[in-house]
């Protein structure tokens, strides 16, 4: 199944205008500076934010078409969405959170095994670490058998070490997924590590040159400084 989307939406500081496609089993990483419209794109894919105009087609199913007045509710899209935080319900323990919309409980047990959080099933979200919460949030999203997986900066609130670990786990998981995955980040290393395709989004538009410009900036400022310390990045470029 392929997801193809095109959106237009007037935002406060710029007009968002973007089109892209993502094939099943592939990970499209949307990258760019904060406030550039990445989360808005993800929310429009999920059906949580209404575009001014555009079209979202998943396989042969139309999820949104402004011309034909089609807007499929988020409930009907059957997708997984991992937020930066607040994905888990505070009143439920981790297992019940992940099983919230699960097709089978056995699968949830298996996912907990896979993400190494089986010993935390009975804990409430506030009793575990940020990394464990996000692992559970991914289980919650996957347990629904999503047709499309959306990850909106899922690791950005975590410390560097946890983040690297989760990044690696996600990469392994990606190999097993058969749905398109859209991943939003502002971290270039994460993008290079995970992506099958990178989509730089700046001020609501696709800006293919953004990555190159950002990485080749003088050392000592922003991302390039961090990049210089990362061996992986120097190998790629």
């Amino acid at each position, binding site marked *: 199944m392929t997801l193809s989307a095109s959106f237009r939406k007037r935002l406060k500081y710029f007009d968002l205008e973007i089109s892209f496609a993502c094939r099943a089993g592939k990970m499209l990483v949307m990258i760019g500076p904060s406030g550039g419209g990445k989360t808005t794109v993800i929310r429009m894919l*999920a059906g*949580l934010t209404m575009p001014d105009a555009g079209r979202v087609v998943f396989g042969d199913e139309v999820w949104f078409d402004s011309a034909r007045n089609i807007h499929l*509710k*988020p*409930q009907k*899209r*059957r*997708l*997984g*969405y991992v*937020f930066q*935080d*607040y*994905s888990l*319900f*505070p*009143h439920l323990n981790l297992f019940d959170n992940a099983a*919230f*919309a699960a097709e089978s409980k056995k699968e949830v047990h298996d996912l907990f095994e896979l993400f190494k959080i089986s010993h935390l099933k009975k804990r409430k979200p506030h009793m575990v670490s940020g990394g464990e919460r996000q692992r559970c949030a991914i289980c*919650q999203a996957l347990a*629904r058998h999503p047709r499309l997986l959306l990850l909106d900066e899922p690791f950005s609130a975590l410390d560097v070490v946890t983040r690297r670990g989760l990044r690696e786990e996600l990469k392994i998981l990606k190999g097993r997924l058969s749905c398109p995955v859209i991943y939003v980040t502002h971290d270039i290393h994460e993008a290079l590590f995970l992506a099958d395709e990178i989509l730089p989004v700046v001020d609501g538009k696709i800006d293919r040159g953004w990555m190159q410009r950002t990485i080749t900036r003088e050392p000592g400022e922003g991302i390039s400084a961090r990049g210089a310390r990362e061996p992986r990045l120097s190998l790629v470029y």
Partner: protein
Amino acid sequence: MDYLALYVTLKLALVTTLVLMVLAAPVAYLLAYARFPGKSLVEALIYLPMALPPTVIGFYLIIVMGPRGWAGRVWEAATGGSLLFTFLGITIASVVYSVPFAVQPMKAAFQKIDRRLLENAYILGLSKRAAFLRVIIPNSVAGIAAAAVLVFLHSIGAFGVLLMVGGSIPGETKVASIAIYEAVEMMNYEAAGLIALSFIPISYAFLLLINRLNARAGA
């Protein structure tokens, strides 16, 4: 001591609380989340009983529930009985009198819930109704309990509105506050004092409870 009046008081407070918890929850949900024209006017109308003298509420309830009022006529046609001077009548009066005390804390509790939690519930396939029952309500337990305690306390203290709608029929509409008033009228200070004294531990315990609940809701 007038145990019968105490019994009617507690029964009335309990029924009022139960009725209002069910009725006020959807209203509080709409006020917290829905957008519709004239919302602030509707909201002010719901809170009006808080701002009106109880006798004014009682007066209008007599007009509506009396034999010539629309509610009184409908009830009489359906059952052959009267709404005034009955337990049902004072229950309706008590509910109207306490509506703001149920809606306001519940609305505040619902509004505290992060919108992203609700969005996640929708993503996971829940309808708005299911999200209300499975996400909003369980995450507002402290706020809902605080509303229940407030309504209960407010109901046991009702006087004017109940006297006007229900009079003072022992075992039916004569609540403790009316019993105290009547005992004092008859210079029976001992009887009045006993009933009055019985209120203090009840109200004090509930106030302690509400403080604990508020602390939990704020945490």
